[in-house]
């Protein structure tokens, strides 16, 4: 296989998928780092975001215009879910919040299924031909996906490093007791975290939907890769989640060179087990909870 074919059939899809995983994994790692639990409803929240965008598209909007609106709505929903279902578990062992989030996942999924049904559907119909960029084939939606991910990641990192609230979030992730002693308001940081996580999650769901199709299980099937990516990169580390996402995405696309294509999903699981076995703190040395 020529180099350019390899790039077009494996690297490009791997990067697109990987950047979708990256955005989702950032949310997972933020919840791990700041709120300290494994957010099992993350995948289904992505599904919800994707379908909310579909609803906006139904009113006549272009999908990429619907995206920021869907992100906003999902951010609000995420904060609402926290206040209603996770807030009163705060003082109890974190594993119970994990358990609750598993239930929330099913609840979100069933809402999506009731409102939009279980049949797969696309944002837009029709075949789109890729454009050639010096031999590298990219469809507009793939280009926009990569660009959006870059914008989101750069924006988030800038927020975390240059704004007061961003530093407060990093402080809470780093040393929650000291953060409290410094005057950081736990509840406000929690709300802000959920808003950001909700928005990012919606984006990853949308981008998966626009590059493949929408169905009610789409987010759930991303859950394992997103967790693998977050843990691979180092729990609590945003840069790690991005790196982990790209690696998992590339590995998944390239796995068909070695294993039958039905086992693509197993790639993430193997990566997860390997990293837990060899280096639980991940590549960029995050926490081991």
């Amino acid at each position, binding site marked *: 296989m020529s180099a350019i074919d390899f790039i077009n059939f494996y690297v490009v899809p791997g990067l697109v998928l990987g950047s979708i995983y990256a955005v989702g994994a950032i949310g997972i790692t933020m919840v791990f780092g700041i709120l300290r639990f494994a957010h099992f409803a993350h995948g289904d929240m992505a599904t919800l975001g994707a379908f909310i965008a579909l609803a906006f598209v139904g009113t006549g909007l272009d999908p990429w215009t619907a995206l920021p609106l869907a992100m906003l709505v999902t951010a609000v929903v995420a904060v609402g879910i926290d206040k209603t279902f996770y807030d009163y*578990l705060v003082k109890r062992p974190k594993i119970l919040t994990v358990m609750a989030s598993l239930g929330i996942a099913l609840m979100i999924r069933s809402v999506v299924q009731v409102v939009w049904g279980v049949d797969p559907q696309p944002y837009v119909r029709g075949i789109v031909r890729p454009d050639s960029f010096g031999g590298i084939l990219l469809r507009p939606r793939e280009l926009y996906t990569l660009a959006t991910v870059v914008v989101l990641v750069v924006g988030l990192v800038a927020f975390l490093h240059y704004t007061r609230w961003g530093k407060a979030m990093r402080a809470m992730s780093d040393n929650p007791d000291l953060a409290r002693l410094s005057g950081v308001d736990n509840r406000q940081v929690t709300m802000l975290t959920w808003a950001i996580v909700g928005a990012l999650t919606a984006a990853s769901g949308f981008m998966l939907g626009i590059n493949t199709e929408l169905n009610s299980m789409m987010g759930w099937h991303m859950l394992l890769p997103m967790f693998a990516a977050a843990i691979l990169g180092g729990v609590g580390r945003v840069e790690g989640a991005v790196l982990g996402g790209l690696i998992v995405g590339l590995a998944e696309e390239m796995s068909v060179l070695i294993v039958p294509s039905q086992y693509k999903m197993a790639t993430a*699981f193997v990566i997860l087990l390997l990293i837990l076995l060899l280096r639980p703190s991940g590549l960029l040395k995050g926490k081991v909870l």
Partner: protein
Amino acid sequence: MELTGLLNYALFMGILIGIYALLSLALNIHWGFTGLFNAGVAGFFAVGAYVSAILTSTPAGGRIGGFELPVVLGWLGAMVVAGAIAWPIGRICLRLRSDYLAIATLGVAEIIRLVIKSEDWLTGGSRGITGIPRPFGDLDYMASQAAYLALVLAVLLAVYLAVERQLRAPWGRMMRAIRDNEAAAAAMGKDVSARRLEAFIFGSAIMGLAGALFVHFNRSITPEAIDPMIATFLIWIMLILGGSGNNRGAILGALVIWLIWSMSEMLTDRLPAEVATQASYIRVFVIGLMLQLVLRFRPEGILPEESARQRHSTP
């Protein structure tokens, strides 16, 4: 005529409740007594089901199996393989926090599902496996059901007694000590990881056994039998509602939740077709909501853990 129908239905339900109760007991070993979050219950169940099916079923073209071994060997095989799968997962994850085990068991269940669907030569793929023998299958319908129910209840009772006995033994006290205060237990010199691994393997083997019991009841198995996540979740809420850390609570929870689940299915089945599918999703929503409510208002469940110092098992 009506009475027979009702009786048959009751027997049918009884068998399923018994199998779910067994799963709930097994999960209690993981979560209630050892504090392990197994999110892949359906996976171990499926493994047990398929192993027993492969070992005991009649031959069929296109897949291995058809060994037609005695049913008992099928069940033993189910337990062994389910336990064997638990071992590496446990070795890797048990030294880390529960969240990691939850993620990994979720992954295991997914992989098992993938393998079942893809490896036609092993599992019959989407066709599944048929021709699975049923103990007492030669009797006429109602007698056969009753006999199988008795069998399931016997297994359930045996497992219940075995676990209860272990709990009252030094092993049980040690497990509670490890669960409640791991640092202190480790300081006492107990091999914490080894004990937790034992519990994990044992519980998983029981889950495999439940799968085997199911498959011999059903006489066949296909991958679409039930959505694994919903099944796993049902068992979790059975345990939490019934009372984790309490074996009778586990069984009671299975009874209550299964009744609610099947009653609601009966209700939604009577609805017109278009609404019926919506209603089935709403049932899942309600079960998810029930978990939130239980966690909030009655986290210890209907039958709380019965030790003098109820601690960690009460969420």
